[in-house]
């Protein structure tokens, strides 16, 4: 099933929960628009209050949009109550019916529609319990189960009537980290086995990147960027996305100089990091891109961009920690085009690497290192690894 949102807005009285909040918008503009393809695993990710759960509730039919249209396979869902939408919903707090047994919970949806595969109800319940690996739990009281087990029951219950669309609202938030990772794998596998269109809501960007076919990063009631996890990670289109998705170092400065640059370097840089070509528009590599000199707090940093930038513009750009190389030896020659001298503030050992927080001038930077560091360090990065996310014309 294909899900489409067209300019969807939600307001509670004067408060805009979903849609652009700036003044001067007509009520039908500035809403949320996106499309989820058949069988796609689509994630809405963003901080608290960004509108992602509101979006999910509108899709489920628990609330009605103030403006805009939601379509299921092209059908306008306006006025269709939740029970007639064919959606399965899993909530963060499981919302199992405490007065019904596990099996009765799973069977509840089958009171209103026949099992989709023509099976009899008991078989359907048994096969779903089997699917979530809780075959023996049918007679149990849901409150006797652990959180992870309850969440799997909630998933089985949501899937039992054979919904066309699965909606998951922060399903892992109440679980501990390790369980979360195991359960999200399980969900992903079940989802791809069933091929069910899924909208997943989370505030955890790492989870979003790990599980999704595509993600929509939401902020302040609006969709900031939609793309595959890789595209969003590599080519954030706004300062918010750059800062929200993954660790990042964000700089802001004034363009001192714009120089044309040959295509060869650019291609090398992309090939050198072993990454596949990016799909986001405006970043088709190969063409000659300008090389910028940017003044960041008095230090000149070189940055590549395909955007149309002129001297005197202010730009925001970011560099991922993994693209910053640390030189213990201050005198060592730097390979990259940019060199920064910074002081170690703290190191976090992550197992496979170490995350190092540095003080550079008046800001904090994050880099990755194989070894623990302390004292003063020199870091460098290539201009091609700096990604311009915003520019303000002079």
């Amino acid at each position: 099933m294909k899900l489409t949102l067209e300019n969807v807005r939600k307001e509670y009285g004067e408060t805009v929960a979903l849609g652009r909040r700036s003044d001067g918008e007509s009520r039908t503009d500035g809403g949320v628009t996106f499309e989820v393809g058949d069988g796609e695993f689509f994630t809405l990710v963003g901080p608290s209050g960004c509108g992602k759960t509101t979006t999910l509730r509108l899709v489920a039919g628990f609330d009605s949009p103030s403006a805009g249209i939601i379509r299921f396979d092209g059908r306008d869902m306006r006025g269709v109550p939740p029970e007639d939408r064919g959606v399965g919903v899993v909530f963060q707090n499981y919302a199992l019916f405490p007065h019904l047994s596990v099996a009765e919970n799973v069977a509840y949806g089958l009171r209103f529609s026949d099992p989709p595969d023509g099976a009899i109800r008991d078989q359907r319940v048994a096969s779903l319990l089997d699917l979530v690996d809780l075959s023996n739990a049918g007679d149990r009281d849901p409150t006797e189960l652990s959180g992870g087990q309850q969440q799997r029951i909630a998933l089985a219950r949501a899937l039992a009537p054979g919904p066309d669309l699965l909606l998951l609202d922060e399903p892992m938030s109440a679980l501990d980290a390790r369980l979360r990772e195991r359960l999200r794998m399980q969900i992903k596998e079940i989802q791809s086995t069933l091929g069910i269109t899924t909208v997943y809501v989370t505030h955890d960007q790492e989870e979003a990147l790990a599980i999704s076919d595509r993600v929509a990063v939401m902020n302040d009631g609006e969709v900031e960027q939609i793309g595959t996890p890789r595209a969003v990670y590599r080519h954030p289109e706004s300062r918010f996305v750059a800062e929200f998705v993954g660790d990042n170092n964000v700089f802001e400065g004034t363009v001192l100089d714009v120089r044309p640059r040959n295509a060869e370097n650019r291609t090398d840089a992309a090939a050198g990091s072993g990454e596949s070509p990016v799909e986001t528009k405006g970043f088709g590599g190969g063409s000659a891109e300008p090389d910028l000199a940017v003044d960041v707090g008095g230090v000149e940093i070189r940055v590549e961009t395909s955007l149309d930038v002129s001297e005197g513009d202010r730009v925001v750009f970011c560099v991922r920690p993994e693209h910053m190389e640390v030189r213990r030896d201050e005198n060592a020659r730097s390979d990259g085009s940019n060199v920064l001298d910074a002081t170690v503030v703290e190191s976090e050992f992550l197992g496979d690497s170490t995350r190092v927080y540095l003080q550079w001038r008046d800001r904090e930077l994050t880099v990755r290192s194989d070894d623990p560091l302390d004292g003063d360090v020199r870091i460098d990065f290539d201009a091609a690894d700096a990604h311009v996310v915003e520019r303000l014309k002079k």
Partner: protein
Amino acid sequence: MSGPTRGNGSSPASDGDSGDSSISDDHDVGSGVLNVPRTDGGSEAEGALSEARSAAATLRRRVEARALTLGAAVTALVLLVVFYYPVATVFVDAVFVEGRLTVEPIVSVLTSRFYLVDIFGFTAYQALLSTIASVLLGLPGAWILSRFEFPGRETLRSLTILPFVMPSIMVAIGFVATFGRNGTLNAVLGALGLPPVELLFTIEAIVIAHAFYNAPLVARVTTAAWESVDASAVETARSLGASPTRAFRDVVLPQLLPAVAIGATLTFVFTFASFPIVLALGGFQLATVEVFIYSRIQNLAYAEAAALAVVETAISVGLTYWYLRYEGRNRGSGQGARPQPRQSLWPDSWTAKATGSRVAIIGYGLVVLAVFVGPIASMVLTSLTGPQGLTLDHYLFLLERQQTGASYQVRPLPAIANSLRFGVGTLLVAVPMGVVVAVLTTREFRGRAAIDTLAMAPFAVSGIVVGLGLLRGLVFGVDAFGTRLQVTGAIAVVAAHAVGAYPFVTRNVAPLLGNLDPRLVESARSLGASRVRALVDIELPLVAAGVVAGAAFVFAISIGEFDSTVVLAEGSTSYTMPVAVERYLGRRLGPATAMGCILLAVTSLSFVIIERFGGRYGGRGGF
């Protein structure tokens, strides 16, 4: 988004998977591959039978989808027909005098020092004292009923409903016999060598009588809340170092306060409109506003009566609104998954604390004996006493009246049968009404408290005004489309009882519904349940305690109701037990008290029976 989980009583013991051997907890995807696509109907393979079945299902869904709206519409219609319209026919006299719109009657009440200061002032004062007394007398009862285990506890709780059905004349008789100059209390005090007390014809007598009626109400609602306190919350507080007293104050008390508040609010509203117990025990120098409303209506001085009633109602409605705003802000923290264990009334060891609390219980028991048992026992005694001492004459009179009474006379058996029939009928109407209103007003929307208040208004309007309104609005009927529409007899009685009783269901159910996790309903609906199915399948079983508690009040209100019944049963054989009590009042009190005792016996028996059933169905917090 990532806020704390809302308590819905289903939180697991731990979030990590427990070492539960019976349930596999490995995390590979199950092998069973499911056939996914939902058949959305219209598959060609489907036969005519399944088409017909799906058509029937569609119809059922359509009906169900509108069931709640329909329920709300029916509730609104019933309220309109047997409450708002009738009351309006009386209130209109306050603003329409001789066909002219005027504010004169209301202004003259509001500018009268006599009415405003002497009457409304005193009415509010005695209501306040009565409320305080009812809370003070009710809370220890709640404590004992909810925290102690003893034989007959359930039955005792059932019997706390009795004051609700006591006709005021019976209470007056019982109080005189108990608290009078020659009453039982003074006899006991005299035997103990203590000086006698003069309670009758004082405000204290009124306050105690009001506590007699309303302390059980406070006790019942507080008991239900107390039994819902989750033991683990208290244990957590204790484990964090809180003393038992501190744990009570920090954990238990906040969960009791909303219940105490509703009990206190209702007590104030009821005692604010109290009549005629005030005159019977206090005398006319302690007259309340309702005395004057009655007097003006009796003399057909409708403008003044209506103006007084409008002001009275405005005060009660204002208070109700204020309470409902408070209730809306202070939803409790949900039902406990596990109630606190009860203590035995006979402690295992007589520590200082255990001894102290047992002494307190005994002291409270003596107060209960005086305030509740005394008057009721006196009434029973009166029914068994003649000029020559003990006699069954009064009961024999009832027997004789049953056997030889003429059709136009009131006979006991039809009165009993009618009372029970109306009680059951009222349950069937009032419980759905109360639940519908609770569901509607649990949702957050602008003006929620105002709608809720309108739905509560039957508590706030003078019974005398409602009675007159029913006479005008229903008994006389309305000319419409060339015919005179009238509503009288059994159906009208049940409807009027339901209107007067359903707010009890709403008030018992709404806070519990408000505590339920809204995602339970949303889950059910996304699984295909209509709103009303989600209500029946999910919400009602989870708030059964509140439904049953409300139903108990409904039944009792119906059994005890007099004002509307006597108006609507006019000229028919629909009289009830309280009407029979009134009819049997004569030169001697015996026959009326005998009928009053039968009223109490029938009510007690009903409640003990319902308790067995309701206790099974509704669990704790019910009868």
